[in-house]
């Protein structure tokens, strides 16, 4: 509860701050302070000190899984602010408002990690999405941004419609007539038709939110069209929050009927892996390539839904951390560039050795090379899937796709180290000393998590 309330409050603070802040850099510091406060509040709650004793009537339930995820999200956000806080100025003049929207998103994130009724899920999803619709279009005079915003909005609203229909059918179908996800008692028999249809609809809506194929179409366009700063945020924190909600909902409500709908997950996972990885191969813009790659990562995270066991839970948490941090890291570099194409990376190893090295670490992590967090993340989700024991071909398919993913990630690495710089492209990438330090810390975090995944996972059993 701490996180929800604090983030909502801080959103308001930032909103009001828009009136009072005179210097354009002030909001950044306030935002950093805010995220640290929220993080601290969340950690205190994790260690047993909630500030607010609100009776939620069981609509929110704060378990270690959700709280750890919150912390991961807040730490990622903190890194994001530290790295790219200044770059919000590139979007427009309402810096403080942008931050305020981000805090509202974080409020949604905290709700999604702790909801216990479909109502809260719905509200959480909306609180997560609506600020993102706005942020996507926040660069008002950028036609691509506008287009992305409208696409995102229309499709998001459409998927909301689907989800609501699903919720309604599930409500009608379960004998208790409850919205509480732990009370939706399905028994162990055959899925009733109402529930079955409702489940598919919710599945589709959630798959849309996490950009799983074939409901992913918005993702490349929106990630590409949105300002890079915003893309970085919504590709990571917003997306994994949706995943956490997805996992939470399906493991709690439908876990007992797991094998009656596993086939659907198999199809979605396979399609997501295939489309994400294959399409990414041909991209020229790194930003868009990463958009597709985020789809492929969604495919890997889908494995946690495929397996729905404790390893999957651990895996999802870890994947969230590994994926978010690495993506924020690589985006931090991209945001500093003016040209997002792969040529823009040519010769980065010569021009900016430190950026090159850290980018390489992030890319290696995204590929899933050992010693980076990305490997342990993939390892956990694959382990979860193998543990489940069904449909092992899917696992093999996944690793083939992971090998394909090496093609596009390494293309960037090749550009960084093995190609000569193109004159006039990204020639002056100005980064501050502080930025470099944070980037190094971020990369260090990736490697640290790659060596000691227990740093995240063991908290589950704290």
């Amino acid at each position: 509860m701490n996180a929800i309330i604090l983030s909502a409050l801080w959103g308001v603070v930032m909103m009001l701050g828009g009136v009072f802040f005179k210097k354009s850099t002030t909001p950044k510091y306030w935002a950093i302070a805010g995220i640290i406060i929220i993080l601290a509040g969340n950690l205190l709650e994790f260690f047993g000190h909630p500030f607010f004793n609100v009776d939620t009537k069981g609509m929110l339930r704060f378990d270690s899984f959700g709280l750890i995820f919150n912390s991961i999200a807040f730490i990622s956000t903190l890194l994001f602010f530290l790295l790219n806080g200044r770059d919000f100025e590139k979007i427009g003049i309402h810096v403080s408002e942008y931050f305020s929207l981000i805090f509202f998103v974080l409020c949604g994130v905290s709700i999604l990690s702790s909801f216990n009724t479909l109502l809260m899920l719905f509200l959480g999803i909306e609180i997560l999405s609506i600020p993102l619709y706005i942020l996507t279009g926040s660069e008002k005079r950028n036609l691509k941004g506008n287009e992305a915003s409208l696409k995102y909005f229309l499709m998001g609203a459409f998927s909301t419609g689907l989800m609501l229909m699903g919720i309604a059918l599930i409500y009608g179908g379960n004998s208790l007539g409850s919205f509480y996800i732990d009370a939706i008692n399905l028994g162990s028999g055959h899925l009733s038709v109402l529930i079955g249809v409702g489940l598919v609809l919710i599945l589709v809506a959630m798959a849309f939110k996490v950009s799983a194929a074939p409901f992913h179409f918005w993702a490349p366009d929106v990630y590409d069209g949105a300002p890079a700063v915003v893309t970085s945020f919504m590709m990571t924190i917003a997306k994994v929050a949706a995943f956490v909600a997805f996992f939470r909902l399906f493991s709690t409500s439908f876990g007992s009927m797991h094998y009656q709908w596993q086939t659907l997950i198999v199809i979605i996972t396979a399609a997501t892996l295939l489309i994400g990885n294959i399409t990414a191969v041909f991209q020229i813009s790194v930003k868009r390539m990463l958009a597709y790659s985020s789809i492929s990562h969604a495919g890997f995270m889908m494995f946690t839904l495929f397996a729905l066991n404790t390893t999957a839970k651990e895996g999802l948490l870890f994947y969230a951390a590994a994926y978010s941090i690495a993506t924020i890291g690589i985006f931090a570099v991209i945001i500093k560039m003016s040209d997002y194409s792969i040529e823009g990376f040519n010769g980065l190893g010569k021009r900016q050795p430190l950026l090159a090295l850290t980018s390489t670490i992030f890319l290696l992590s995204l590929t899933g090379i050992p010693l980076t967090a990305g490997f342990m993340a993939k390892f956990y989700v694959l382990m979860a899937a193998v543990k489940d024991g069904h449909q092992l071909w899917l696992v093999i398919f996944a690793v083939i796709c992971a090998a394909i993913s090496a093609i596009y990630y390494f293309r960037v690495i090749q550009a960084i180290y093995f190609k000569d710089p193109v004159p006039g492209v990204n020639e002056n990438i100005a980064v501050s000393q502080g930025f470099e330090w944070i980037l190094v810390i971020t990369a260090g975090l990736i490697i640290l998590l790659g060596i000691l995944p227990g740093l995240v996972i063991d908290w589950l059993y704290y």
Partner: protein
Amino acid sequence: MEITHILFWFLSALAIAGAIGVIASKNPIYSVLCLVIVFFAISGHYILMNAQFLAIVNIIVYAGAIMVLFLFVIMLMNLNAETEPVKNIYMKMAGVISGLTLMIVLVAALAHSENANVVMRAGTSIGLTESLGKALFNNYVVPFEISSVLFLSAMIGAILIGKKDSATEIK
């Protein structure tokens, strides 16, 4: 046939006709008006089901506020039938066919659902403002408060986007 049944069929026919009108009419203004008809029909259904509060809210919020907003926007943009060029006919066909298929699939599936023939109970007071209000401010106060965050962000968004900035180049 009871009166409620007659009303049900009438309102249903009205709603479906209105809905078809929404998607079929060339002129956006007609679409809006058709949608208003649908909303009224649905409100009628609510009343049939003894959910008076929702019926009123539906009319006030949807038919009143939201639809007027739509209408304003359409007027503002001065849209009319000619502004919408003919869409690719195949895409249209595909859309209609897949939508109809979806409908058939869903109807066929749900026709055999376990609850399909449960008879609805009428005549209780839960749909009245009083009972709903009590529930809202007792059990549902947290989501109610949280929805304020939603509104705040929507508000900021509307301002942020709607406000006219000093003219910059279109990218």
